[in-house]
Structure formats: structure tokens, C-alpha cells
């Protein structure tokens, strides 16, 4: 019996994906800047919804868009991790503590933990420097795992007030990470704009 229900759920999602295929593809192209990558992501979505144990979903279209958006974000995040390791490498190199002949194999990535710690410290300081409202909202959202509606209730402010606080927090943290060179070339190849931009950009806080 449960198998039937799951099948019913995933079949429904596949049908929904078929129905919204064109607009999802268009979104993916716009989101990742490459028709080729967009096609890969779409393939991944077919696989995912085929195996999904989700069953019925309230707003299927929004669910699929969110899934597409998250797939692109996850891929960017994986590239970011790789980049961060290189970044830590460079920092250590830049310190000049090690003579070239004493260096370990250049191909070996620097300790992931070191890279993470460096990034964490940058983020930590940026979080501490946030305005009170944005900091509280961010804490509840990401560190306590609350939903936006719940944060609105907890802080006694409107839902749009919560969105404003969180957006401000994200923008400022982005600026701090970019200032320290953490967002350089982390994003997808294959489109222009800011990608691969200068490590230190000017911006308003």
C-alpha cells in the first residue's frame, strides 16, 4: 500500500515537471547562465522527481522551481568549497613561512578545516557587526532554524519586516565575504557579468 502512494506522489511530480518543463528550463538558463548546464540540471530534476518519496505536495510548481534553484545553488556551493581550499592554500603561501623547497605537493589541497575556519571567522565578525534587528532575525532563521512566519511572530514584526532584515543581513555578509576574496570565481563559468570579478570591490554597506 505505501508503495502505491509513493508512486502516486512521484508520478504526480513527474507529470507536473513535464507540464512546467519549458518555464523551468527558461528559469534554469537565466539562473545559471548556460543552456548547456540548464539541460543538465533539468535531467537531474527528472531523476530526482522519479525517485522522490515525497508524495503529494501542496504547491507543486513552486516546489519544482525551488528544487531547480537549489540544484544550481548546490553546484555553486561545491565549486565554492573547492575554491576555498585553494584560497587557504594561497593564504599560507602568502605568509611566506615555508620555503618553496619545503612545500608539500602543490596539488594537495590545504586542510579543509583551516579554510573553513578562516571563512567562519570572517562571517562571524560580519554577523557581529550587523544591525541589531538583522542580527536577531538571522540568528532565529539560520541558527535556530525558524521559518520566516515564526520569526515574525517571535519578534512581533511583520513578515515583510523579517524579509527586509534577512535580506540586509545577506547583503552585508556577502560584502564581507567578497571583501576577503571568498566569492571570487566561486560562481559558475559560462556567463559574464560580475563572475570572476575583482577580489575587492567597492560597495555600500
Amino acid at each position, binding site marked *: 500500500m505505501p508503495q502505491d502512494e509513493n508512486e502516486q506522489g512521484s508520478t504526480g511530480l513527474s507529470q507536473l515537471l513535464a507540464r512546467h518543463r519549458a518555464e523551468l528550463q527558461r528559469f534554469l538558463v537565466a*539562473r545559471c547562465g548556460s543552456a548547456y548546464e540548464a539541460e543538465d540540471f533539468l535531467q537531474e530534476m527528472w531523476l530526482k522527481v522519479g525517485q522522490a*518519496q515525497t508524495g503529494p505536495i501542496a504547491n507543486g510548481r513552486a516546489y519544482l522551481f525551488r528544487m531547480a534553484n537549489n540544484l544550481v545553488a548546490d553546484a555553486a556551493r561545491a565549486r565554492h568549497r573547492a575554491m576555498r581550499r585553494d584560497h587557504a592554500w594561497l593564504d599560507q603561501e602568502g605568509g611566506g613561512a615555508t620555503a618553496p623547497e619545503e612545500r608539500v605537493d602543490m596539488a594537495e589541497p590545504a586542510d579543509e578545516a583551516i579554510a573553513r575556519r578562516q*571563512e567562519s571567522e570572517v562571517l562571524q565578525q560580519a*554577523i557581529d557587526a550587523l544591525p541589531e534587528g538583522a542580527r536577531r532575525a538571522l540568528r532565529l532563521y539560520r541558527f535556530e532554524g525558524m521559518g520566516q512566519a515564526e520569526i515574525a511572530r517571535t519578534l512581533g514584526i511583520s513578515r515583510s519586516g523579517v524579509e527586509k532584515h534577512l535580506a540586509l543581513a545577506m547583503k552585508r555578509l556577502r560584502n564581507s565575504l567578497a571583501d576577503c576574496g571568498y566569492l571570487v570565481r566561486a560562481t559558475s563559468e559560462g556567463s559574464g*557579468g560580475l563572475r570572476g570579478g575583482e577580489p575587492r570591490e567597492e560597495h555600500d554597506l
Partner: protein
Amino acid sequence: MSREELDKIRQDAAGWHIASESDSMDWDGFTAWLEADLRHAAAYDEISLTDGAVLELAADPAHRAFTETPAVVQAPGRVRRFRWVGAGAGAAMAASLAALLIVPQLRTGPGQVYATSDAAREIVLADGSTIALAPHSRLEVSGADQQQMVLAGGALFDIRHDPRRQLAINAGGLTISDIGTRFDVQSEGTNLRVAVAQGKVAVSGDALDKPVPLDAGKALTFDGKAGVSQVASVDAKAVGAWRDGRLTYDNVALPLVAADLGRYAGTRVTVSDAVRDRRFSGTLTVGNGDEAIRDLAQLLGLRLSGRPGDWRLE
């Protein structure tokens, strides 16, 4: 390109990103925004990566990003009410109000009783732990350290771990103890479901051979009548999502689902004996209670009789 222009793009990108987690996200508008300028997608990527880094930091137990006291600090005894704001139009639950209050420091003696009707309620314990008590639920808290609780209905517990305090929650004939952090409990008569979002708990009782340890991402369902218990994986993020009007199930017995709908959608649902053993997997949105029940009936191929507010699944 000017600084102001770039800053505006980043601000918009952050706004879209935050909105993307809401059910009311305008995906067409977002697509159009991305298409309007190549810099938009790049700026969005950076915001999304930043959020990923924040999530990673939050998940790192070695890192304490916040050392301040909890956000929910109210004068003792004062009760504040906020209108419940649902996630999107569909999730707006009618007549749902949440209240916040601090439980006064308790002495030994009769317990403090919290009971909800149509509204969920947030309870903050003296140590800063919080409990979101679901609509139509009842929680009794007693003991010198507020360490004894009895629950009928649903609640999401966010408990500060203190090894010196032996906190125990009785619900559905079983006892939940050895508690650290965040978990959801739904009990209805002799049916019990415990789902852990973070940390771990142990569930014990006469009906179980030995205590069942539950880690994050695991849920135990217990049918007291049949004497059957089962542990399954759950999406940790979906634990406690009832507060945003979403009920997510993985292979859960129909009577429990019906009881939840009764609690969260404010409508009575009875289940005929013929379909008691059916199980449900999926997510129901409790925007309009009657709609959620129709969805459920349709998805399981069940006959729905009765009338709005008092349904019967058969």
C-alpha cells in the same frame, strides 16, 4: 557601473533569495529579473553562496555565532499576542494566534497547565528552552526544575541540554527522556509520534522492550492499541513544520494523520475501521482545513463523507 547601481542589484538579489523560501515566491518575476541583466544572476549567486556559508557555520557545533540570551524575553506573567502570519496565502490559518509567555519559576507541587484551543502558543521555560504548543493541545509542567511534563496533543520542543536535569515528557503512554535540543511530539490517545530535528532523545515505556534512542532525522511512531512501534527516517527540516501550516508524513498511520488534521485544521475527522491501517506519505498544507482533507482522501483513494467541520474517511 556605479556603486549605487551594484548595491541596488545586490539588495534585489538578497530580497529574491529570502523570498525564494516562501510559498508565495513570484518565480516568473524572478526569472524576468534574472533575464533582465547578466549581472543579476551573478549577484544572486553570490548571495546564495553567502547563505550557504552561513548555514555551514550554523551547522558547525564548534562555532558559537551567538552568545546572547534568547530572543524571546518577556516580563514574567505578561502575555503578548501576535497575529499568526502564514507562509503564503494558502497557509494562512484562520483564527490562529500565538502567544508568548514566560513560565514562572515553579516550586514543587501541582503543575502548571497550558492548554490551547484554536491558537498555537509559545512557552518559554526558565532556562530559556522553548516549547511551541500546537492548537488543541495540553501540556502540564511540574517539578522543581520544570523537569516533568505531560503532553496530550502536539508540541515542538527546543530544549537546552543540561545533563544535571532529568527532563522527562510523558505522552501517549510512553516517556521521552535523555533529551537534547529540538524535537516534535504528536500524541493522540494511544498513538504517539516523536520526530527529532536536532540532537537526540530516548523513548521508553512498558510497551517497549528497551529504550529506543532517536537521533536527528529519525522518528518513532507508536500505536499503543496494536502495540506496534516503528522507527523511520524523516526530513529534519520538516520537523515542526506545522507551525508554518505544513504537515509532512512518511508512511504514517491514517488515524494519526486524521488527528493532526483535526488539531491543525480545526475540523473533526473520523476514520472508519476499514481504512484504519492505511498509511500516508506526503505533505498536506493546512490553509483551508476542508481542502487538506479532500486532498488526503483523493490521494489515498478514500471515500469522504460527512460535512465541512466534521468529516469521515472510509
